[in-house]
């Protein structure tokens, strides 16, 4: 029997495009087409200038861990535990919640440098994740 797969994010007008970018291998950040303000999570309107026009940029994927938690219980099918979830300040200035892979749950720490990649599940679903930064990415501000 196939291993159960992760819960898929419900997708609507306001978020489906972001997951499509992930499926195409990109970590996207929504950008206001009027005032250029970046925003995440995506929303239909810019909270700075009320413009409905937007496009997006591709993130460089580098960031630092601003908070994290390690999930032990309850355990849901489709996920491996302990499950590390990090809140990452991306270099572009927006923040993203995602899973941290290739890291022991004992080793995750505040301020650690991470880099994103697109993970592919056994069922083909693609989802942005982080892993510890490989090169000496400095987290100076």
């Amino acid at each position: 029997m196939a291993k159960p797969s992760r819960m898929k994010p419900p997708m609507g007008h306001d978020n489906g495009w972001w997951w499509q970018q992930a499926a195409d291998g990109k970590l996207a950040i929504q950008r206001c087409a009027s005032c250029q303000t970046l925003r995440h999570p995506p929303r239909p309107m810019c909270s700075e200038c009320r413009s409905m026009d937007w496009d997006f940029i591709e993130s460089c994927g580098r960031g630092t861990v601003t908070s994290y938690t390690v999930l032990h219980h309850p355990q849901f099918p489709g996920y491996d535990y302990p499950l590390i979830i990090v809140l990452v300040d991306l270099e572009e200035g927006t923040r993203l919640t995602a899973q941290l892979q290739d890291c022991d749950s004992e080793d995750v720490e505040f301020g650690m440098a991470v880099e994103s990649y697109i993970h592919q599940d056994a069922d083909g679903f693609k989802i942005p994740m982080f892993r510890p930064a490989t090169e000496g990415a400095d987290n100076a501000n």
Partner: protein
Amino acid sequence: MPISLKNEAAIAGIGSTEFSKNSGVSELSLACQAINHCLNDAGLAPSEVDGLVTYTLDSTDEIEVARAMGMGDLTLFAKINYGGGAAVGLIQQAAMAVATGAAKNVVVWRAMNGRSGKRMGQGVSGDILSSDIIHWSWYMAYGMLTPVSWVAMIANAYMHKYGVTVEHLAEVAMAQRDFALNNPAAAGYGKPLTLDGYMNARMVCEPLRLYDCCQETDGGCALLITSTERARDLKQKPAVIRGVTQASSRGQEQMTSFYRDDLQSLPEMELAARRVYKMSGLGPQDIDATCLYDAFTPEVIMQLESFSFCGRGEAKDFVADGNLRRDGQLPNNTHGGLLSEAYIHGVNNIAEGARLIRGSSCNQPEGVEHVLISSGVGVPTGALILGRD
């Protein structure tokens, strides 16, 4: 001149069902039992109730209660959103209605099979595509599905910044469990909690362990709100509403306000604090006891700062000094709270606030004049100050 809600209305009745892990009855049945006890406590006939307010999460509609209990004409019915964030929002609705004449006698309630039925702790699902579900979508795919996982993210950032330790969290849990030992209605009755017991319980979502998390309960709790004048003619000593407000702030999400600059504070709770202190003309020095919303232990510690009982980063020391206990500066959740009495989404904490004003808590401190009660933490929330007539 706008109407101030200060002193316009009072909590005149309190009623609860038994709290259990398996009620064996419907949520409508729990609602009716709780409301019946509430009206008997106050000495008011169901036919006099003209307003009903509950949670959007409550499965029981207002008119189902009204028919089952033989209520007649209703002129106010409303449901308030955001889970436990609704708690004192119910009181605000009721107080506004009473102050403006929209209704005279308003019953608010929450009744839930929170253990045997839909368990909040088991997380969200994506059945209906709404803006709220799109919000949850950013967490669901990563397996971040439960309230404790969302709270852990903020708690960890707060604890890291201010050096809060698990011993501080444990003190919140143990202080409230000690109160529950005197409360026969509480889940924690007869079950003392030691530091060893706390530390040895399973890790749920780091840094939160089992006893950092509230109960899951089948039960109901109801309150009657009427004019302060009318409350004086009923059976119980009124718990007068000195100030009440809802509060949500910029960048607010439901449980996952992860994208604000400052993760280590609760701006919506600070807004609630400013509003209730201003409306009541009171300050933190006037508050004798609290029922701070306690779905998770770090929420209690953070709120001590939101309500200015302590400066930023100082709440851990305030807690470590035993101030949340009966002989401390600020006895908190003297019934055991959501952690050790029952999880009725905060309505049972408001009920305890009213008991503290009546002088009838099972852990009644001396000379309680004013009690501060809050709604859910990390969601659109609110605060309430009750006082003696």
